[in-house]
């Protein structure tokens, strides 16, 4: 389901892995249409996927009563992707550093790190309930979506 705002795709999705795939595909398309190279497209898509997984798995806990919201926009200066859940909220400052030696052998905890590594800006907003992540990838001049 598309949003009405021109140039911006807005999705309201169920808390499923199919929705994660849809978010990943939309992000990859956004990046490709902006003219990013293969590696950059991969990074943007992966960051969006990780954010969607967090929303579905940790935020909404696969609860069918809770939705995943996603929006995708090329502002001309940047790609802006927002992912929001309706869960109990996330404190990003409480996340352990996955690169710390004591955490290297943990089976989880790398998603936010990857998002921060692949995007230029990552912002968290508490929605009460829920968390919204905004992922920003700066564009070179002349990369506006046609």
């Amino acid at each position, binding site marked *: 389901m598309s949003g009405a705002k021109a140039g911006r795709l807005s999705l309201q999705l169920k808390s499923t892995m199919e929705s994660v795939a849809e978010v990943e595909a939309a992000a990859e398309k956004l990046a490709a249409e902006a003219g990013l190279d293969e590696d950059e497209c*991969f990074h943007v898509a992966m960051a969006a996927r*990780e954010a969607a*997984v967090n929303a579905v798995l940790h935020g909404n806990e696969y609860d069918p009563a809770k939705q995943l919201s996603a929006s995708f926009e090329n502002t001309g200066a940047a790609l802006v992707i927002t992912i929001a859940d309706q869960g109990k909220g996330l404190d990003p400052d409480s996340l352990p550093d996955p690169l710390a030696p004591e955490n*290297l052998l943990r*089976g*989880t905890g*790398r998603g936010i*790190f*990857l998002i921060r*590594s692949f995007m230029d800006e990552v912002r968290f907003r508490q929605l009460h309930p829920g968390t919204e992540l905004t992922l920003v990838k700066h564009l070179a001049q002349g990369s506006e979506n046609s």
Partner: protein
Amino acid sequence: MALTIASREVDGVTVLDLSGRITLGEGSVQLRDAVRGLISKGVKKILLNMGEVNYVDSSGLGELVSAYTSAKNQQAEVKLLNLTKKVHDLLQLTKLYTVFDIYDDEASAIASFK
């Protein structure tokens, strides 16, 4: 594309030829089941051939780590072979490159198992 796993044995080493994506929900579960199944049967030498793995997400990375630690806890070894550039870069970014023994030719990988 889901993960497909083919198993073969070379000089006492079980080689799992992986193809596809190791991600939350599908590939990660298949990988976990395959490795744990081998370990439960007493297999001590496991080589994951990642040459056809084109995508690993954070859950997939976690599953690779879990395979490594599960094996180690049972005095077994899990090593990696033929990383694609994307997976190689992910392992370097997450410092997991320092955890695993990683090879780019099978003969060397097989010979490295004690």
